[in-house]
């Protein structure tokens, strides 16, 4: 995640981002102008986020495909792979203690 916006400003960015999304497309430019008049640095951020909304879909689709691919791999029964009694996860150890 980028360093901009700084964490203390992030809530404000998120609110304005949603407010921009709630407006019809033709009204967004006017909204951005309004924001930019007070805080020009936020306007650039909001523009980038609105563009990212448009661009994110195919990227998310590829990420989903990656997850499916890894799931296939992680759960494939490979005779050479360590059995389910291996100790590869700290979570397992905590689980047996807690159970």
């Amino acid at each position: 995640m980028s360093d901009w916006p700084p964490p203390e400003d992030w809530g404000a960015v998120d609110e304005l981002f949603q407010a921009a999304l709630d407006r019809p497309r033709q009204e967004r430019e006017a909204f951005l102008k309004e924001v930019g008049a007070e805080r020009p640095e936020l306007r650039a951020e909001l523009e980038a986020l609105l563009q990212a909304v448009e661009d994110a879909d195919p990227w998310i689709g590829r990420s989903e495909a990656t997850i499916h691919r890894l799931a296939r791999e992680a759960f494939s029964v490979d005779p050479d792979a360590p059995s389910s009694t291996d100790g590869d996860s700290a979570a397992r150890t905590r689980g047996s203690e807690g159970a």
Partner: protein
Amino acid sequence: MGASRDDASREGTGPVTELLAAHARGESNALDRLVPLVYDDLREIARRHMSRERPGHTLNTTAVVHEAYLRLVDQTRAEWTDRTHFFAVASRVMRHILIDHARKRGRQKRGGDAVLVALDRVTPGREDPATELLALDEALTSLSERHERMGQVVECRLFGGMRMKEIAGALDTSLSTVERDWRRARAYLYRALAPGAHR
């Protein structure tokens, strides 16, 4: 995984059922405590499902999670909403399992050297899937630090394969809130990770 394993699982429904109820009441650490209790069973069930499928088949996460729910949660004590909440828990467990797998794979590939790669600017489909997943996990963790619910929506959607309506039920919020979170979350993750998305 014979009879003794099944017996152990039946004895083990108590803690999962109780923690699930605590999670539904909004107790903050219940989710983290549930993850290790569900981890092994979910992995085992997923492996069995995959072994029955054709090569290249996509894991039916919903079926796996439903089976895990029936095995791990005492049906006589569970509320009907617990099933939905369990899906959110299972989504987190799936995330842990896949991250553990990606890390292990990375270690094997690098001959045991734990070399850290730059995790930003990772292109899905072009990089090693394990590297891609670790980058996504890192960005998702950052997002959750800023907005917990938004992070959970992404987790349920990407790792649990849950539908928007199911996520709304699991997170006790409205469908429109989930849809709005998901829309913004995608933009944040894209901006954090995708090459060409300037920051």
